[in-house]
Each structure stands twice: as structure tokens, then as C-alpha cells.
């Protein structure tokens, strides 16, 4: 039961969903350069069948992997980005938003859904790196905030799947304030003894890491995900030295005491199910 059925459903919906997972018949692994069919890839939880490399996937892929019978309901879709500062760098922010909306199924860098995992109700907020680098702006903060409101009202656990380069610079100090906003809201879950899980995937950096991603009752990550505050390029420029192998990867964070565990994508649903079951009052 469970897995195979859902994966098959995933295959059927692949053309309908604009997914981050590679389309077309063949997939060539970024890490080992081996080729596999997309069918093989999907049957292997969107990991390379040869080396286990976890491909970068999107919010809807995670919903498909996690929720029972592929059923879930979106929350907070009514919240949409606006270009409040009329920000323009090499491109106007409005154009960046339009382009991102066109190439993604997701309507902003985070999508929130409620459903059940192994029979346990949960709200999951998941990010899309293909939507302006998974950047945190007012919409991310507000969708998380509304997701938390639902959890508070219904006494349901909350999970955030992070995949983000950090703050959305085009929203300047308002994007910075989303760190404070999400922290303030998460403190209410804590006060009400409602579990909050932070699941970090490749990459999780900047203000996202320095707020809700590191505030989980339980923090865990996919293997070999880049997780940090400053990006590796900035650190390299600061210290003027090469960075050690494996620096800022999940395994490094686990070793330094910042993660509870690393979970292979194939075991994510089982492990989350266990935690939800054990923490249930």
C-alpha cells in the first residue's frame, strides 16, 4: 500500500503538474552523471537510482510523498505578493513575480497544505526554490502565519520544509521582519504544546535558517543539503581560504549538534508518521 500507489499517481499527474523534478524520458544525475529513466527516478522517491542523490524537488512533490492517499487541501493561497516598494534592479520585481508565476505551479515561494500523514493530521508548508530562489517575503511570512493559526485553532502539528536562499531582497526590511513575525507565531505553538517540525532541504540559508528553520522542536534534514546562515561564497571571501569538504552540509550540522537526524527521502513519511504518533497526546 501507500508508496507505490502514490508514486504511480505522481507519474500520472507529472504532465499536469509543473514540477521541479526533471521532465522528459531520461534523467542525468548532477552528482554521478549516470543516466536513468524518469520512471526509475520517480519510483526511487526522486533520488538518483545509482548514487542516491536527492534531486531538488518542489512543494507539490513533497505533498505527494507525504500526505495519505495524495489528499490535501491548500491554505493561504489567497495571500499574494505585491511590489510595495516598486523595486527594480536589473529587472522590475513585478516582472520577476510574473516570470516565477509562469514557470511554477506554486503561486509563491511557499505553499501550505493540510492533510494527514499515516492517519495523523498535520499542516505542511513547503518551499519552491524555482520561485525566486525560495525567497522569504511578506507572502511567505503571512502564509506561515495563517498555517499556524489553523494549527492553533485545531490543535494540529505544523511542519515547514525549507528550501530557500534566504530573504527576498526586493521587499527589503519587510522581508527581514518576516523572521520576527514567523518566530512570534511559532512561539505560540510552543506555548500551546503543539509540535513544530523543521525539515531542511537543499539549500536552506540566510534568514530562513536564522529563524523558523532552526526553531523546530525537532530539526531534521535531507542528506547532503546545504544548510547555513551565510552562503559559502561569502564565507570564502571573508576568510580568504577554501572551505573544508562537507562544510555546511547536513552531515556537518548533525555532527555539530544542530540537527536531530538526517532522513533519506524514502523514509521521510515513516519517520514523520512515527514522530506524530509518539507525540500525540
Amino acid at each position, binding site marked *: 500500500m501507500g508508496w507505490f500507489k502514490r508514486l504511480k499517481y505522481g507519474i500520472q499527474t507529472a504532465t499536469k503538474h509543473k514540477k521541479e523534478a526533471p521532465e522528459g524520458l531520461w534523467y542525468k544525475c548532477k552528482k554521478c552523471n549516470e543516466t536513468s529513466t524518469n520512471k526509475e527516478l520517480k519510483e526511487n522517491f526522486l533520488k538518483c537510482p545509482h548514487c542516491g542523490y536527492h534531486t531538488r524537488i518542489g512543494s507539490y512533490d513533497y505533498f505527494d510523498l507525504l500526505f495519505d492517499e495524495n489528499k490535501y487541501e491548500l491554505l493561504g493561497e*489567497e*495571500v*499574494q*505578493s*505585491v511590489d*510595495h*516598494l516598486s*523595486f*527594480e*534592479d*536589473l529587472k522590475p520585481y513585478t516582472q520577476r513575480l510574473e516570470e516565477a508565476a509562469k514557470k511554477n505551479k506554486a503561486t509563491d515561494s511557499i505553499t501550505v497544505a493540510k492533510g494527514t500523514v499515516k492517519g495523523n493530521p498535520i499542516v505542511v508548508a513547503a518551499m519552491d526554490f524555482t520561485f525566486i530562489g525560495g525567497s522569504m*517575503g*511578506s507572502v511567505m*511570512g*503571512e502564509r506561515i*502565519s495563517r498555517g499556524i493559526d489553523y494549527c492553533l485553532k485545531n490543535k494540529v502539528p505544523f511542519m515547514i520544509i525549507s528550501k530557500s536562499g534566504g*530573504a*527576498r*531582497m526586493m*521587499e*527589503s*526590511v*519587510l*522581508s*527581514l*521582519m*518576516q*523572521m*520576527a*513575525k514567523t*518566530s*512570534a*507565531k*511559532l*512561539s505560540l505553538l*510552543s*506555548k500551546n504544546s503543539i509540535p513544530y517540525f523543521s525539515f531542511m532541504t537543499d539549500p536552506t540559508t*540566510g*534568514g530562513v*535558517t*536564522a*529563524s*523558523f*528553520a*532552526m*526553531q523546530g522542536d525537532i530539526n531534521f534534514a535531507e542528506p547532503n543539503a546545504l*544548510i*547555513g*546562515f*551565510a552562503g559559502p561564497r561569502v*564565507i570564502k571571501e*571573508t*576568510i580568504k*581560504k577554501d*572551505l573544508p569538504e562537507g*562544510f*555546511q552540509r547536513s552531515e556537518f550540522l548533525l555532527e*555539530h*549538534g*544542530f540537527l536531530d537526524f538526517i532522513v533519506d527521502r524514502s523514509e521521510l513519511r515513516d519517520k514523520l508518521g512515527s514522530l506524530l504518533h509518539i507525540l500525540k497526546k
Partner: protein
Amino acid sequence: MVFLEFEKPLEELHEQLNNIKEVGEKGGLDVTPIVSELEQKIESTRNEIYSNLTGWQRVQLSRHPERPYTLHYIDEICEDFVELHGDRAFKDDKAIVGGLGTIDGQRVMIIGHQKGVNTKLRQYRNFGMPNPEGYRKALRLMKIAEKFDIPVVTFIDTPGAFPGLEAEERGQAEAIARNLIEMAQLETQILCYVIGEGASGGAIGIGLGDRVYMLENTWYSVISPESCSSILWRSWDYKETAAEQLKLTATDVKGLGVIDGIINEPAGGAHADHKEMADILKKQILKDLKELKPIKKDQLLQKRIEKYEKMGVFEDRKN
């Protein structure tokens, strides 16, 4: 005196003034009329320059080498102060200082970023860029304040949390994240004042509070104009443009609903008169303490959460 690029006309006038005074002294001449004329000119020029400052010029002012830092203010406004050191886990970060003190007899826990006043001290203070242990020391002090029902006052002035290898190893992100969630529920008043640079996570790591004010010539943004230029324009040459686009001045940030107000600086900026600046800041702190102290703790926390809950601008298609 150190003059910034855009203060060139002022620098020239000051040179003229000094020359005239010297000539007068040497020749035993009465130069009073010229001196007073020049002094008036200096004042009007200064007022003109300072009434039309661009975002980038404010950024430069916030980094003025003669600007007062946290320990300056503590010296000026506290009758009594005991500095407290260390995070009890790793070490004492010199880029964040803190301690117990009194202002007009009122107990406070003051915590602030600290920059150095000369080349040697700038290095010692790591240019005001904290490591994780700085944020952890700050939290330790806040917990002491909470325990003894003492208000927390923070002074924000950092170019950012330090982006170093060891900082990552010791969990820079976790340290800031923990402060944010703890400050959200800290059961005592928290007053925050941006006294210089308010750069990103490094600033907000001690910047979540019941009241947040910015001094007139400071900035608060998710990223410095230089880094923003390098990332979004892929060149270091757009810092002025980035400073405008980021809407990082006190007036802009107030307009976005992020801060409660702006604290005026003396004519010519905080660096022109440390004593007056400290007096102005002290008055504001006392006013904020007076306002917040009567509020019951549960209400205080509820208001704090509601304030941050509202932050952000978006379209709500249901409304």
C-alpha cells in the same frame, strides 16, 4: 573632525574659519565679524546638506568613525553600570556588550552591538559583527532580566552577523533563531534602538521588542546596499541605487510600519555632539519605560505578538 564626501563644502568652510582665526591671532586683528559670518554660513550649509540626505548618505553617516557606540551611551546615560561577560558555553564575544545598570534610578539590562573606536579596537570588536556566542550572551542576559523583572534595552549597530567558518560551526543561524523565538515570549519589557547600522539577521537577533526606534541617521535593511548591489546588479557599483531601492532610511522604515518612531539627532548628526545625542536618547528610553511599565505582562506579550503578526505587505484576494 572627520568630514564625509558629501560634507566637502563644510570642510572647506571649517578650513577657512580656522585660517581666519589663526591670522587674527598672529596679527592681533579683530576678525570677529568674519568669524561670525563664517559660522553662520557653516550652520546654514550644514542645515542645507542635512535636510536633503540621500539613503546612501545616511548609510555613510551611520558608519561615521566618530559616531557614538553602545558603551558611549551607557557611559552617558547610566548612573551605575556593571558589565556582564560571556555566554557560559564558549567565550565572551566582544562585538556584543551588555550589563545591568540604572537610568534615572530605573533598573535596566542594556545589551548592544559594540564597534571599536580606533583601528586596534575595531579589530578587537570584530567591527561590530557578532559570533554566535554574542547572541547567546545576549539571551543569557535577557533571561536574567526576565527573572528579576528588569526591562531590556538593546542598541543595534552592526554591519551584520559575522560570516565566518567558526561562526557557522557554532551555529550562527541557530543562535539568532533562538533569540527571536525567546524574545517573542520574554516576560519583561524590550526596548530596541537602532543607533547605527541595522543590517539584516545580525541586527534583528537582538531587535525584536515592544518598542523599536531608529535614530535619524541610521539604516535598517535585509541587506547592506553594497551586498545588494553585488547580488542583484552583479556589480559593486550600484550601492547608491541599491540604498534608494531598499528604502532603508528611518523615514522609509517608519513608513513601512516596522518601527515606532524616529529619534532626532543633534545638528550635524550624532557624531557632532555625543552628549546631546545621549540626552535625547535617554529621554526617549525613559518615556518608553514609563509607557510600558504599567502594562500587565500577558498583555505586553500579546501586543508584542500582534505587532509582529501585522508586519508585511501583500494582497489578500479574499478581501
